[in-house]
């Protein structure tokens, strides 16, 4: 009974649970265990969609991960953008980066985190203004998405680097979301993107999103066909790193995910065993 009480106290002790979690997360990060991984079907589908893009495809990439969520979203975007850059030149794929968000997405992470890790687009033979461009950040939420969708030039006249967008060769004939072939969203507000860009213009949407409850939100749209495919969380990022054969921080953190999940499940099971024992002895 005493041991039961001790264990019960530990389980309800915030310091113990969180302290143990931190230790169990640090160990595999400091010394990777190299555990095997199984690639999820969603990641495979996502990879195949990018791999089978038609020549001349125009991709609108809305890159708006908030800084607080960069731990989940940036590891996904790195292998995806690497994949896009690898095939863009040979297939004449045009990539239009933009940052339309409510107020909290950080387009600058594209330069610092993504290009800082995989290299600049020029390293892949892509020319700014002809193969890729960065249309800049516009705050405003639904109004911004809606205005941009109908008339790009109504909301953006200059790109991120101060060039008039009409001076970019790849902007010729691109006036609204209807002129793009694929939309990729990295950030929050996935359902808003579906509402403003996907459904009205019947465009396929790929989504890089968080794991957990956000996936529950994306699933109905995925099943209805409004979102073509999604990657969810660091787990999917690790899958994609393996698929493009470019291990990075996501694969490195999988061991930590495994260990912490096992610890949590153990705590939940122990807690329930104690609870059942308590109820049984209470009845007696």
């Amino acid at each position, binding site marked *: 009974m005493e041991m039961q009480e001790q264990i019960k106290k530990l389980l309800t002790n915030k310091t113990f649970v969180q302290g143990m979690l931190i230790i169990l997360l640090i160990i595999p990060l400091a010394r990777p265990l190299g555990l095997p991984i199984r690639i999820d079907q969603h990641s495979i589908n996502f990879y195949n969609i990018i791999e089978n893009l038609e020549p001349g495809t125009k991709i609108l990439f809305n890159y708006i991960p908030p800084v607080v969520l960069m731990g989940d979203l940036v590891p996904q975007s790195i292998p995806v953008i690497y994949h896009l850059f690898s095939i863009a030149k040979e297939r004449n794929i045009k990539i239009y980066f933009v940052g339309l968000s409510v107020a909290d997405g950080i387009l600058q992470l594209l330069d610092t985190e993504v290009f800082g890790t995989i290299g600049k687009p020029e390293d892949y033979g892509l020319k700014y203004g002809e193969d890729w461009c960065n249309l800049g950040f516009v705050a405003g939420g639904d109004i911004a998405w809606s205005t941009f969708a109908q008339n790009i030039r109504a909301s953006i006249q200059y790109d991120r680097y101060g060039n008039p967008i009409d001076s970019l060769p790849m902007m010729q004939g691109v006036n609204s979301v209807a002129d793009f072939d694929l939309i990729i969203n990295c950030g929050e507000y996935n359902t808003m993107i579906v509402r403003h860009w996907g459904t009205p213009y019947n465009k396929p949407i790929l989504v890089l999103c968080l794991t957990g409850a956000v996936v529950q939100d994306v699933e109905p749209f995925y099943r209805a066909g409004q979102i073509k495919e999604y990657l969810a969380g660091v787990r999917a990022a690790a899958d994609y790193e393996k698929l493009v054969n470019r291990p990075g921080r996501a694969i490195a953190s999988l061991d930590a995910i495994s260990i912490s999940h096992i610890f949590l*499940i153990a705590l939940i099971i122990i807690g329930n065993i104690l609870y059942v024992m308590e109820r049984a002895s209470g009845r007696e």
Partner: protein
Amino acid sequence: MGGISVLRKREIPMAIIFIISMIFVVQYYVKGVEPLDTLTNTLGNWAIIFSALAMGIGLINLIIIHGRKVMDRKGEWYFDAWLILIMLVTFGLGAIGGTEDPYYSFIFNNVYQALSPTLFSFAYLYMCTIAVQAFRVMNWDAGLLMLAGVLTMIANIPMVQVQTGLFVELKNWIFAVPARGVFTAFRISLALGFVLIGIRVILGVERGYLGVEEA
């Protein structure tokens, strides 16, 4: 007039909201009218400008509210002074040098970008603590909740996924059938709720955003 400025009357903001909302609603359903499309694009741009202005208003509000505390030397006023100093320095560096400015980048990369995810990680720690306490088999509902939660967690463990696909299939079923049904219902209800609140705002029934009541 009783000392109330005509600019503060509720009727003017409500009239503006009604007219502009009706323009957007009509434009959403009636296509092919160019003057209407041009008007909504212009109004949309104004809205984007206003939302950017709102951030500027936020800056001014902060200076007022924290400046008052600094002037009155109330409580931990030195933290308020520090906040105002850092805010103005960061704003100034960004406004003058742009986001490429090395000092601005230093503050962004080494302070904001480092601290934000660190503090966000508390969410995971608290979620775990709450999960351990909440997942108790007290009754059938709680038992089902625990079962679904534990199955999903097991399915997310890479080690287990490699050994067997059973848990992944179960997790996919939970996501695709019960969870999806519930979240679809939530989404429909919420969308209807937002439509209703939009109608209330357009018709002037909902006036909370105006703040001030007439005396």
